[in-house]
């Protein structure tokens, strides 16, 4: 099934077109992004049951971008009808354009060329098997309740089992002088998280699920309670790791966050403009092992970071960032491409219509290699299998990387010993880490359960992943 178009956007489109026409009479470039989005979060745990919308990813609203002949400015709003159009035009002219007048001495305005408004018209939709809103709250809550209760009943040491799903169905309409694009997307994510206590300390483990689709995802969650519970209980026996540099095998979720933090954020080209990314100086140079090929793109995979056009009206692409170890190119939004004289890559994204567009990732991953996971483990004399990444942070300026990993499984003489260390901080210099990759497994797994921030804000839905990789990594 395909996600249907928004009736609201269809009804409001003539008014938006009228607003756009008025803007184009005054400004050389103008565009409007209209959004109609609904979401729902279901969660069942010992704390109770929750059904709520996720306010960050829900709502109806608009953002206008205009070019005043020198630079670009934007007006976000969410109330419009035919009578309000003159008021909106007045605010843009008299309150937005004039904002540059508040600048103190010594602060000037940037100068930009006009956006190349390439003609493009389409209306596309993602597909699903079961729509969460049609599937219904009753069945979803019932399913999650059974999962949560069976998790809690697994062992008396289990403190809680939280089971949840989140879904977003959004519709976006992009209008400019030459563009009339509409897209309709549905994604769903799931999470099982269990907690067990060791005195005052609470240990937890999670397994996440995601798709570009609907509640067909629930089938994947059905049979995992036992494995999540066993791993949570294993963590009760875990110890802090002895700091040092080790041979490590990263599970796909850890590989994915390495890709995301290392050369995802590192090649966001708005950072090139600000001279905040070292990668700008290393285009066409080896930055990783020849075993490494890395992609980003809304069209590079079918996951939660997928769409048909970005929030600036640029069609989705599949960008090869690293090709066999060589850094090839970065990703960019429109304004960044204007500054750098490059072509935008369909990575201009907003947290919502209320926020600015930045260069952002979409689906970011390492390509598969040829190795078997068993052979990778056998190849390690002493080291760790790293699983269950809980957070990551980039440092594009100095190519540092930090990941928090929940589980380090000890490997001795090519075998897993059963000993578990937790929590573990993975740090290092990105090229050292990527150049040390010596084995890559033959299957890729992407996960789109999380959101990505720009610094500490501007959350957008992304996926990342890859195969198992073997590398030399500093753990603490």
């Amino acid at each position, binding site marked *: 099934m395909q996600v249907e178009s928004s009736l609201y956007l269809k009804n409001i489109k003539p008014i938006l077109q009228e607003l756009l026409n008025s803007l184009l009479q005054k400004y050389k470039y103008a565009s409007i992004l209209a959004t109609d989005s609904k979401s729902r979060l279901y969660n069942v745990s010992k704390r109770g049951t929750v059904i709520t919308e996720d306010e960050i990813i829900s*709502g109806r609203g608009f953002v206008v971008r205009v070019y005043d002949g020198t630079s670009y400015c934007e007006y976000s709003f969410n109330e419009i009808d035919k009578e309000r159009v003159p008021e909106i035009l007045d605010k843009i002219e008299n309150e937005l354009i004039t904002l540059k007048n508040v600048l*103190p001495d010594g602060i000037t305005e940037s100068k930009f060329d006009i956006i190349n408004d390439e003609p493009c018209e389409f209306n596309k939709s993602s597909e699903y098997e079961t729509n969460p809103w049609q599937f219904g709250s009753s069945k979803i809550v019932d399913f999650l309740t059974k999962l949560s209760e069976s998790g809690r009943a697994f062992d008396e040491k289990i403190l809680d089992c939280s089971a949840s799903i989140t879904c977003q169905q959004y519709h976006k309409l992009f209008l400019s002088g030459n563009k009339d694009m509409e897209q309709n997307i549905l994604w769903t994510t799931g999470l099982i998280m269990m907690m067990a206590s060791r005195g005052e300390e609470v240990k937890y483990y999670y397994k996440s699920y995601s798709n570009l689709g609907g509640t067909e995802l629930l089938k994947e969650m059905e049979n995992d309670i036992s494995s999540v519970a066993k791993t949570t209980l294993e963590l009760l026996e875990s110890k802090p790791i002895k700091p040092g540099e080790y041979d490590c095998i990263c599970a796909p979720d850890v590989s994915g966050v390495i890709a995301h933090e290392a050369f995802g954020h590192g090649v966001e080209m708005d950072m090139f403009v600000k001279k905040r990314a070292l990668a700008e100086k290393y285009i066409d140079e080896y930055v990783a092992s020849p075993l490494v090929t890395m992609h980003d793109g809304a069209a590079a995979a079918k996951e939660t970071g997928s769409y048909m056009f970005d929030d600036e009206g640029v069609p989705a692409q599949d960008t090869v960032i690293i090709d066999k170890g060589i850094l090839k190119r970065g990703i960019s939004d429109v304004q960044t491409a204007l500054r750098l004289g490059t072509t935008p890559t369909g990575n201009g994204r907003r947290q919502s219509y*209320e926020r600015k567009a930045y260069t952002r990732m979409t689906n970011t991953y390492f390509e598969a290699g040829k190795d078997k996971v068993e052979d990778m483990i056998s190849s390690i004399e002493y080291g760790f299998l790293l699983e269950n990444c809980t957070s990551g942070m980039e440092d594009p300026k100095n190519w540092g*990387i930090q990941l928090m990993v929940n589980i380090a499984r000890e490997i001795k003489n090519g075998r897993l010993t059963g000993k578990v260390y937790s929590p573990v901080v993975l740090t290092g210099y990105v090229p050292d880490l990527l150049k040390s990759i010596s084995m890559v497994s033959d299957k890729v797994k992407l996960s789109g359960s999380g959101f990505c921030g720009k610094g500490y804000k501007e959350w957008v839905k992304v996926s990342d992943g890859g195969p198992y990789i073997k590398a030399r990594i500093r753990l603490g």
Partner: protein
Amino acid sequence: MIDKILSGLNRNNISTYLINEEIVESVELFFIKKQLDTRRKKDVHHYSLTVYNDFEKDGRKMRGSSKIGIYNGMTDDEISKAIHEAYYAASFVCNPYYEIPAGKKEEPVVLYNPEEAGTLAGVAGKMTEALFAEDKLNDVFINSAEIFVEKTTSHIINSNGIDVSYQKLAIKGEFVAQCIEPQDVETYMSFSYDKPDTEALKEKVKKTLEMTKARAAAKTAPPTGEYKVILSGRYVKEIFTYYLMRSSAGLIYPKYSNYELGMNVQGENVTGDALNITLKAKVPYSIEGIPMKDRPLLENGVLKTIHGNSRFSYYLGIEPTGTYDCIFIPKGTKTFDEMKTGEYLHVVSFSDFQMDELSGYFSGEIRLAFLCDGKSVTPVTGGSINGNLLECQKDIVLSKEMQVEEGYEGPFAISLPKVSVAGK
């Protein structure tokens, strides 16, 4: 719109509800070096509705709830249908019964008066001037910055008579300081004020530029080992989020936290500073309309308040206070210089500092630290710290010097003994 929502509730015979209305107006400026890159303005109006559905299950009284957004452009029929679906969904939410707060119509509280503070655009201009006031050196400078000046009017209505509102100002933003020589490094810094505090922003920029210059001189990671670690700046607040979270009804009810009123959460035989923490009310009402006021959280390490929303507070049989996210801690027992005696590692910047309120673990990759071997001080970068507050909370020492960060007023620095460091 409020009338339309009330009408939709009536049409569906729903008698228990909570409506949150929020009007946000903002001015946003984005800079690259000393050039304005983009300017933005925002005018949005949001409504959310929580409906409650009372029913019995297995002889037990239940109160389910479901929260939805009501969007501009929705017709009366669309609103009524959305409310109907939310009420139906709430019938599957099997939460034990609890009472929602009661109140009456109150006069609006104005925390932001444009006649005193100035227009949003005017405030943005003043803060821009303050942001760049200290940016006058050649070797270290502001690489880029963002300023958000936001006026928010919050209105809370519920079926138990609450009808309250308040208006506030928030000035938020971030900047990146860069130093090119002897090596190219940067420091990210955020700021948040509820009034146009130009002096505080100037001071923050000045300190960040100095810190960035110091980082440019740091080349190696500290040796692996155990250190007395000193944290300063915003990381001190992060450490104390542990106590704020562990004392919330939402964590105590499901037993994620073992805190009880009267419990000495720091444990017996505290050799460092006994903790005194006050919960600060940043806004006059919680999201449910519960009046908020300053309350003692810890007195000499003893838990005095469990804070939380109406549901978890009812389950625990305590007064609902609203959920707090701001704390005050009085000055500690040692000056910052006294803390820096003997061997220590003073971390002033992390890539990302994590404080896990469930496990007590804190960790982060070091972007800049000062390593003292007891004689000389060397700037270091790289490696990570990994410690557990449960193991060192009896021995923490707080500085006499104070600071103000978003959601925190308290000591500028904290000393933590025997923290594991993974370095060179």
